[in-house]
């Protein structure tokens, strides 16, 4: 009886612990049966919960394998009729031929009551967040991958443009290459240009691509500036493509372009030819030396003028005295023995204000000279 009671209690606790957990089911809604290497297609996965499952988070990050590349295109999360439905569109692109076994996994994380409580209260001493993580394997998807040796796959066009075909010497020709469409454009390897006797300037290819259901869609642009003294031919560019619409291989090729380079401008053929002075080297360097010397002399003159600029002498503390009495007081306040004699003379009336000031001026200048 006792044993049965214990088992019952354990069972009750287990049921209690799992009673509030939601149930969910993964399924594949859409998947291609057959693909060519480099051709991308979407596999749609769905996770269906039996309730609103607000305390669940699904972390699904598709990873590449040796035989295919996987990228997340879209993910959708909604609740319909009280049930939470998560939908993931994953672009699968075969890398090698054969049967692909697409095996992806996701992490289903449940936020527990303890974790919510910690966050609400603001506990900051929780060492480990109280989550329940479950690693879930997606349902297997098998795809037959057919070999394909083309550089790119998809619905792709190719264009080569030049801004002019006739230029003067050293005048640049701008060459633009455009690869447009949809497919595995992310795999595109930029063209390299090497024409003998032609200087070329380029910048990294501009990739304006976005991921969609049929792979990468958009445009890749390469710009070159070509400069030469002689005429030259821009060679044809080509790229092999597997057309996913017609399921055929084709080569996209441009035509060679002849660039006619004429002689450059010379002073003789200019209507307003500049008058160039025929200074010899020593004359030119002589001018440089002259101007440098002139600059040094001017700087020295400016410095001398600044140093010897007229400056107003600072007023002495006794300058403000308007009467002999005031001067006597100001000097006495100073408390310096050197003024005692003048103070005495002022007190006795033996010296006028101006005479006293002259004496003080003389005394000050003598002190400055001493210094």
């Amino acid at each position: 009886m006792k044993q049965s009671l214990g088992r019952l209690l354990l069972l009750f606790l287990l049921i209690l612990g799992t009673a509030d957990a939601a149930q969910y089911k993964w399924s594949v809604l859409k998947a291609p049966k057959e693909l060519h290497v480099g051709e991308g297609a979407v596999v749609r996965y769905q996770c269906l919960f039996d309730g609103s499952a607000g305390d669940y988070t699904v972390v699904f990050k598709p990873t590449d394998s040796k035989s295919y590349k996987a990228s997340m295109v879209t993910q959708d999360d909604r609740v319909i009729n009280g049930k939470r439905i998560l939908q993931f569109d994953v672009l699968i692109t075969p890398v090698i031929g054969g049967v692909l076994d697409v095996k992806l996994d996701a992490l289903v994380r449940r936020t527990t009551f303890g974790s919510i409580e910690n966050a609400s209260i603001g506990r900051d001493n929780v060492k480990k967040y109280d989550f329940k993580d479950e690693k879930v394997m997606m349902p297997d998807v098998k795809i037959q991958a057919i070999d394909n040796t083309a550089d790119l796959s998809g619905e792709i066009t190719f264009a080569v443009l030049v801004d002019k075909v006739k230029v003067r010497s050293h005048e640049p020709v701008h060459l633009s290459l455009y690869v447009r469409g949809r497919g595995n454009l992310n795999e595109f390897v930029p063209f390299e240009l090497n024409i003998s006797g032609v200087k070329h300037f380029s910048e990294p290819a501009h990739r304006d691509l976005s991921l969609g259901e049929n792979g990468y869609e958009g445009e890749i642009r390469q710009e070159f500036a070509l400069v030469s003294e002689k005429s030259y031919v821009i060679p044809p560019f080509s790229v092999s493509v597997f057309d996913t619409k017609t399921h055929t291989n084709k080569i996209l090729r441009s035509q060679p372009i002849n660039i006619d380079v004429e002689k450059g401008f010379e002073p003789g053929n200019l209507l307003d030819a500049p008058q160039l002075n025929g200074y010899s080297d020593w004359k030119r360097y002589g001018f440089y030396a002259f101007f440098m010397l002139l600059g040094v002399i001017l700087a020295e003159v400016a410095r001398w003028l600044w140093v010897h600029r007229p400056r107003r002498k600072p007023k002495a503390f006794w300058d403000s005295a308007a009467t002999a009495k005031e001067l006597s007081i100001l000097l006495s306040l100073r408390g310096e023995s050197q003024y005692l004699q003048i103070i005495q003379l002022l007190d006795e009336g033996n010296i006028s204000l101006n005479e006293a000031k002259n004496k003080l001026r003389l005394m000050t200048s003598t002190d400055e000279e001493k210094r």
Partner: protein
Amino acid sequence: MIKIIDAIRTEIAKVVVGQEKMIDGLLIGLLCEGHILIEGIPGLAKTTTVKALAQTLGLDFKRVQFTPDLLPSDILGAEVYDPQNNLFKIKKGPIFTNLLLADEINRAPAKVQSALLEAMQERQVTLSDESFGLSSPFLVMATQNPIENEGVYPLPEAQLDRFMLKIKVGYNTPDEELLIARRIASKSSEAIHAIVNAQVIGELQEAVKTVHIDEEVERYMIALVGATREPERFGLESIKRYIQFGASPRVSIDMFKAVRAMAFLRGKEFVTPSDIASIIKDLMRHRIVLSYEAEAEGIDVDTLIEQIVTAVPVP
């Protein structure tokens, strides 16, 4: 009489180079029996000058080095038990002297500084239940160092007010400093001899009292003291907020004495406003309490006194 003063100056000059202002201040203190507080950074011959003056005067001289652990009884004295006669005897402290040098007075706590209050004002000391008069002349010459903040106790206002003059000692001139350095290096200082005694000092003090002060000059002095309390009366509204408390009546009393001594030192028989201007900063700088606004704005009390002196009409 002025010859005696000149002789005292010459004697002091044997060991002290320059510092005429400090020596004049000490002589004024001596002639008026007023206590002197000397403030200056270390090494400006404050203590040396006071010692030299004491030796020249031939008076009894004691020196107390004020320290944080000093007690009032270390200065005043105390009642001590005599086991032989089974009696308590009064043991007099160093204050029973003519010239007391209170060296670094602000290093002792307030209770020790206050022990001097009675002696400085009433010239007597009460030990146990008995009061003892101090010999005449009695002069406290205190020194303090203004640059240290750690371990010093600022003198309370009541104590400061008992000092007739607070003399600020500055650096010597370069020529004077050269002479000091040479003299110290060659150890060529001469010995100081006592050239006067208490009787002569008494005669000098009586002579100072005969110096005449005209009534207009007297009123000028009272106006100067009044201007520290009510500066707005003299068009100095701008400095009113910087002064919390103006000079006390004790300043007027001391000024009447000190200006006579100043005129006497200058060989005059009457006081002129220039004598007042020469000594007014020393008389007032420790007795005007500045407001917190003045402290916040870094206003110096000497600058305020200068403004007051230049604003009050000179007779």
